[in-house]
């Protein structure tokens, strides 16, 4: 396993484009996080301090940081599709196999790298959130701090699931740009099916129930948007904006299911294909 990760990391790290993208995908969420946590003085007119809004309080901070950090996953997604696309266009995939890598090992080396990257991202976000939280939060009891830290798990699963989808699309179409296009098409497709179902069933509830099983929607559902929740904490009496933002086991299970399907299908595609 270590050998497979080393293999892939060498391929990625020595490539300038992917190295830059990896660095960006780590640095950018942090910069945003840190910038937002400092006091910004707008030329003496007013000071903007997001910490004052209470969004850096435990436990809500877990929700907020993981949600916003997850939006930066797109940078590494480009790396994932290009690491497949390049292997095809340079024919190095063929050469790797001839040199003695099995097709299974090839897919596994990509998958392990995805897991490895997601793990690093999760740990870093976890540490940053903890530090910022300790600095700003009004509550610092252990049981409050670690309440809702399951958002970290959700973040991890979300990254692994999303990158597995990218890996699968990359294997399917062999070209990085087309794979990203497919991702967008899939997004639209999910909405079209959602529209069809809600039109046929005359009920949004059923449509949402169906939609939660779609790949992109299931990943989105893992960490619901936290804005509404922030508003809720400000106006606790407004019960009509209540919504379910928790991380549920079945949400995790759906995404893990998709991950397994994507990785296994990638392997099937590679196995059947003549290179």
């Amino acid at each position: 396993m270590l050998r497979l990760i080393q293999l892939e990391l060498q391929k990625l790290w020595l490539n300038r484009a992917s190295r830059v993208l990896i660095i960006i995908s780590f640095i950018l969420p942090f910069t945003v996080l840190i910038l937002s946590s400092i006091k910004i003085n707008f030329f003496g007119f007013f000071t903007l301090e997001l910490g004052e809004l209470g969004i850096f309080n435990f436990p809500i901070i877990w929700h907020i940081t993981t949600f916003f950090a997850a939006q930066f996953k797109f940078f590494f997604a480009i790396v994932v599709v290009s690491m497949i696309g390049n292997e095809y266009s340079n024919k190095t995939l063929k050469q790797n196999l001839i040199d003695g890598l099995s097709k299974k090992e090839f897919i596994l080396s990509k998958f392990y790298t995805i897991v490895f990257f997601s793990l690093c991202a999760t740990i870093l976000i976890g540490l940053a959130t903890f530090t910022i939280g300790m600095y700003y939060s009004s509550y610092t009891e252990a049981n409050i701090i670690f309440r809702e830290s399951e958002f970290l798990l959700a973040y991890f699963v979300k990254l692994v699931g999303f990158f597995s989808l990218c890996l699968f699309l990359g294997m399917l179409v062999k070209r990085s740009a087309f794979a990203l296009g497919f991702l967008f098409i899939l997004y639209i497709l999910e909405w079209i099916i959602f529209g069809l179902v809600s039109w046929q069933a005359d009920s949004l509830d059923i449509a949402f129930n169906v939609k939660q099983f779609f790949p992109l929607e299931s990943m989105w559902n893992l960490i619901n948007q936290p804005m509404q929740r922030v508003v809720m904490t400000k106006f606790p009496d407004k019960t009509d904006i209540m919504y379910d933002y928790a991380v549920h086991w079945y949400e995790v299970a759906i995404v893990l299911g998709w991950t397994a399907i994507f990785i296994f299908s990638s392997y099937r595609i590679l196995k059947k294909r003549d290179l």
Partner: protein
Amino acid sequence: MEPILTINNLTKKFGYLTAVKNLSFTIHKGNVYGILGPNGSGKSTTLGIVLNVVNKTQGDFHWFDGNTSTHDALKHVGAIIERPNFYSYMTAEQNLKLVCKIKGVDHSKINEKLEVVGLLDRKDHKFRTYSLGMKQRLAIASALLNDPEILILDEPTNGLDPQGIHQIREIIKGIAANGTTILLASHLLDEVEKVCTHVVVLRKGEKLYSGRVDEMINSHGFFELKAEKHQELLTVLEAHSNIEKVKEEGELITAFLNEPMSAADFNKVMFEKGILLSHLVKRKESLEEQFLQLTDHQ
């Protein structure tokens, strides 16, 4: 002799097209084999199948004694196909390190093999700065990293200039001299003739011949003849029992033998018949002529 690769009734279909048809042959240790065939005759497909990158339709093959899985066997095989495939953004050394990791070989081999192909002084240069000849030599170095029992080369001199072709051939000869089995696919006949001891001839995916290069055609050679008495010579030749067929090209007459006969004996016969030859050469068909005969007749 120890078998290295055994292929039994291998068939590969791409849709309606049958690229390889019921192919069987065995590669034994220590020989230099050529797979010969025109473009599109199934050479690369066959190599692709045994190297695990193309899926077979029917039949089977096994490496070595048959108890090793293809995946493990490939760790004892070195192969380069069509054109060198490396990561353009890595240096030669980094590329070879990657191959070492895949094959599970120690990094210490890298310099040794770069030396063999004469690229040691360029090892820190990026692959994309290499000329085609250098790329091909790097591919050979990469294939040699695990000290393979068999080296598979698919058209290794394709697209190279004469100097590059010469360099590659010298390297191949050097490797063969060390006792490494070599399987060389090519459509260049003189290449196979110069390098190989055994040959498998393919046409449209079918095997036409497999065996030693010098026994490829059951032929006793032919005479090239010229004489003043052109017409008489023709008549005598056609009546002669040792002569299978006669071809006329202007002044030059080519007489094919169906039985062994020395030039001296032939000359004597002609002299007795009163024909004085002004030109007599006995020759064997070149591989090219043999190959064309073989592929034309069927």
